[in-house]
């Protein structure tokens, strides 16, 4: 059976490799992917429409904002699903871990983490806010922030981290992120435009239409950052404690 799988995989590989000779030369500026009208429009018009230097953030949060909203919802659903899969089900038989982790928090690790975690969080906020101008944005900043909570859980134990960011609060923050995102969309709709059409926010904010899109992108990225932070930590908390939320790694 495994031999059959190997032969099949090799056949597929040969097929793919044979098809690969039809690809354009790597890095060709005239290849169909690089010279399509959509991407040329994005490259040329991002500055005019939104005044955001980072094209990727502009396309992600403005031109393709609907995709990003639904992706945030997907992350949220994954977090809830992991939590409910591990919390529900038959009662866990009490079972010793095969590999027992040391109980005492180490002196060096805890003191280093105590110094580093605020810096990480400030850096995460910087990445989130600066995503318009440099590589970054909501996802990266959100994951870095969630990782700071995971670091607290690793240095001490899961209880210490859960004292600071309990699971109910996690899900509330995650839902708040989606509400912020959809709220900005609905606000634009109520002001007369379409859903997620940020230019209409210029009627309530005292800025021009392009800057309205700029600021709405920031708001949207903040929403994404909230959700991703909470869900990354909830994922770690559920998985490392097998749903029990008592002892972690």
């Amino acid at each position: 059976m495994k031999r059959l799988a190997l032969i099949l995989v090799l056949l597929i590989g040969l097929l793919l490799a044979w098809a690969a000779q039809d690809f354009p030369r790597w890095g060709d500026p005239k290849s169909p992917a690089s010279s399509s009208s959509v991407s040329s429009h994005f490259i040329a018009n991002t500055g005019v429409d939104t005044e955001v230097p980072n094209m990727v953030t502009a396309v992600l949060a403005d031109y393709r904002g609907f995709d990003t909203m639904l992706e945030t919802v997907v992350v949220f659903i994954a977090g809830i699903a992991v939590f409910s899969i591990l919390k529900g089900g038959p009662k866990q038989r009490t079972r010793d871990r095969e590999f027992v982790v040391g109980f005492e928090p180490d002196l060096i690790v805890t003191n280093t983490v105590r110094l580093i975690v605020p810096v990480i969080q400030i850096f995460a906020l910087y990445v989130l806010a600066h995503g318009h101008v440099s590589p970054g944005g909501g996802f990266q900043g959100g994951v870095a922030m969630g990782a700071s909570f995971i670091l607290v859980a690793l240095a001490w134990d899961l209880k210490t981290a859960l004292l600071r960011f309990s699971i109910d609060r996690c899900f509330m923050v995650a839902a708040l992120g989606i509400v912020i995102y959809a709220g900005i969309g609905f606000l634009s709709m109520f002001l007369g435009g379409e859903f997620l059409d940020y230019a209409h926010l210029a009627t309530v904010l005292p800025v021009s239409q392009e800057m309205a899109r700029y600021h709405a992108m920031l708001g949207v990225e903040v929403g994404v950052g909230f959700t991703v932070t909470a869900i990354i930590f909830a994922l770690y908390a559920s998985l490392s404690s097998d749903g029990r939320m008592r002892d972690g790694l």
Partner: protein
Amino acid sequence: MSLEILNTLILSLLVVVAVLSLWVRDLVVSAVIFAVYSFLMCLLWAEMGAVDVAFTEATVGAGASTVVLIATVFNIKRKAKD
């Protein structure tokens, strides 16, 4: 020219690391080698000019994904049979 050499070097390392990650028996070692794979991907994308994707892969792939894998492995048996 040197960029192409770098590219080819990282790509060949990538294949080696991928095979190695699936070969070792200990699952924690496998997860750590998978983190190396993520970092090499991040390098590759940074060299190609995809900086946002590299940033995301560095945090999500090498950070969150590895931690979540190791956290799970600590709850099950560490040694795989093959």
